[in-house]
């Protein structure tokens, strides 16, 4: 139980199509994260699954049953809102008990379920307080408690941590992951924070302008982005994209001309790309000081020292509107306007065609995961 299918789901507001035919299958117990920039339709999609927005076209299917016209409570789902949406005049106990009171549950059942949820969420000592007396993190836990007591098959979270400060957000992230394991329920989580997406998700759904740009496990999106949008969206700082020319293809991959140097990238070649203009993608953290398979000389215009890493931003000739970014481990002796040689390895590079579609990289994700472990 807790399977969800979206079949060509469309949402229009007047003449504007916000969600443009989304297809997605979510398995029981999966933790799915919707990410994307503002206005990409991720919250709208979640609200359609919740039953708060009418579905303009397509089907929403939960456990084999079409639920488009069912009220939220009959879909077996619960939702945690970004703004908490707690009832300010009720105590924490009454807030958590609210769905059970609506159901008409007996007082004994209500007390038992509320106390169980409160124990899971460490709210036992707060049950008689009102939301106004709680911290942001505690309020969010009350909102989660209200969802838990209904014992839904599917939990929906709409940017639940976006109002919390950074350290509390990190704590709640861990707590939500623990909760997912404990409850084993399907969870669908909307965020614009890619750290939340990468750390919590079994699979990430990247949305762009109402379309799914890519669905995959976090590391799959990181190592094998399907297109330049996903490549740029996943990873912080974003991936550098440099225009290159294809000079040939071989069994080893695609050879490009990079700053007058020949670089053969281990990607699956396509027919007829010789001479074509392509985009070479390299993540800032994959660039190193000194020589690599290809090298370039840069003069940083801004240097940020975070202790753990040093970030250098460079304006490349012909790319004045976009920074080329380099992330170096620890404290490195790069300074503003001082030329330095950096190198990149062919195996770390990505390649995209003129439409932004990626060439398949020849890397084994399982092997990568095993190496990392």
């Amino acid at each position, binding site marked *: 139980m807790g399977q969800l299918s979206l079949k060509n789901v469309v949402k229009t507001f007047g003449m504007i199509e916000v969600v443009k035919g989304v297809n997605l299958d979510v398995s029981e117990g999966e933790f799915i994260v919707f990410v994307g920039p503002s206005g990409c339709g991720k919250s709208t999609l979640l609200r359609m699954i919740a039953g708060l927005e009418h579905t303009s076209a397509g089907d929403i299917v939960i456990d084999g049953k079409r639920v488009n016209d069912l009220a939220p409570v009959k879909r077996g789902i619960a939702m945690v809102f970004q703004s908490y*949406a707690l*009832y*300010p005049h009720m105590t924490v106990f009454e807030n958590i008990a609210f769905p059970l009171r609506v159901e008409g549950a007996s007082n004994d059942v209500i007390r038992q379920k509320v106390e169980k949820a409160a124990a899971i969420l460490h709210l036992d000592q707060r049950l008689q307080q009102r939301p106004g007396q709680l911290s942001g993190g505690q309020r969010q836990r009350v909102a989660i408690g209200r969802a838990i007591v209904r014992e839904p098959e599917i939990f929906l979270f709409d940017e639940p941590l976006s109002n919390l400060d950074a350290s509390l957000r990190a704590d709640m992230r861990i707590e939500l992951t623990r909760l997912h394991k404990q409850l084993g329920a399907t969870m669908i989580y909307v965020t614009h924070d890619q750290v939340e997406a990468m750390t919590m998700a079994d699979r990430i759904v990247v949305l762009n302008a109402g379309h799914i740009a890519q669905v995959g496990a976090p590391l799959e999106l990181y190592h094998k982005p399907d297109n330049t949008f996903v490549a740029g969206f996943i990873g912080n700082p974003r991936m550098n994209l440099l225009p290159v020319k294809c000079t040939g293809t071989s069994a080893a991959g695609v050879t490009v001309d990079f700053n007058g140097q020949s670089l053969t990238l281990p990607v699956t070649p396509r027919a007829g790309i010789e001479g074509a203009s392509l985009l070479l993608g390299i993540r800032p953290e994959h660039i190193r000081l000194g020589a690599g398979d290809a090298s370039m000389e840069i003069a940083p215009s801004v240097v940020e020292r975070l202790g753990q890493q040093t970030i250098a931003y460079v304006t490349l000739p012909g790319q004045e509107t976009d920074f080329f970014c380099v992330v170096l481990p620890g404290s490195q002796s790069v300074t503003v306007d001082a030329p330095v040689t950096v190198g990149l390895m062919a195996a770390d590079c990505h390649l995209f065609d003129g439409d932004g579609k990626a060439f398949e990289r020849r890397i084994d994700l399982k092997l990568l995961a095993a190496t990392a472990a």
Partner: protein
Amino acid sequence: MARDNDTRTMIDRYTWWETVLIYLGIFVFLFFLLSPFIEGFLVSLKPLAQLFSSPYRFWPENGSFAAYVSMWESVPGFARYIFNSFLISTVATTLVLLLVVPAAYAFARFDFRGMGLVLAAFLAVSMFSGAVLLIPLFRLMRTLGLLNTYFAMIVPGVAFLIPSAIWLLRTYMMRIPTELNEAAYMDGASQFYTFRRVILPIAMPGIIVVAIVTFIGAYSQQFIFALTFNSKTEYMPLPVGLFAYFGKQEVIWNELMAASFVGIAPALIIIFFLQRHLVGGLTAGAIKQ
């Protein structure tokens, strides 16, 4: 080193002459606002003979509360007038709240065809002076057979008070986050359950403000309706009843003033009681702003 223990923010600090000016301004404002009441109260304490002495004395000489006792004997039906005023205002306020609370919620939460037009019509109606409509209302009351009844003073009052009450409460209810409705809907609550258990308690400060404003409005508009639609003493409210102190030969000013103060006491008690329930910031913690 000397420490400045002033906890005010820099923007709240004034020089001595600014402070003097501010207090002077407050004093002038309060004087204009309260001087009729002060004068009225002092008159109620003075013996009748002293009121016409020359030169006029502002402070009472041998002042007493005698007029507060004698007023009940001079106009034996005075208690009835207070009761009538109280009854008319209370019933009118209750009726207004019963109609306005659900209506304001509907106007605040639901989007329906013609809503803007209806709201504009309410605003237009509230701009009419009651006096303009007295004659048509009189004909209406006569046709309905309501002249010389409590209804004649309650029904038009309710009609006049509803529009502004709807606007006032709608504005308040619009500030209640819609997420609370959505959360309750997700939890399976019906519209009515959500209204009763979630919205109504949160809207209570707004409802109390509307109740106070309506009660005051109902109290003050009785005069014109009672004078036009009623000629029976037993239904007379206080503002008209005060005319009983205007005798054929003289006006018993001290008793009239005493009666005025006694007459507004129930209204003041009600308002005092209601305003204690005005809890600011009741939505604190509902949503992250």
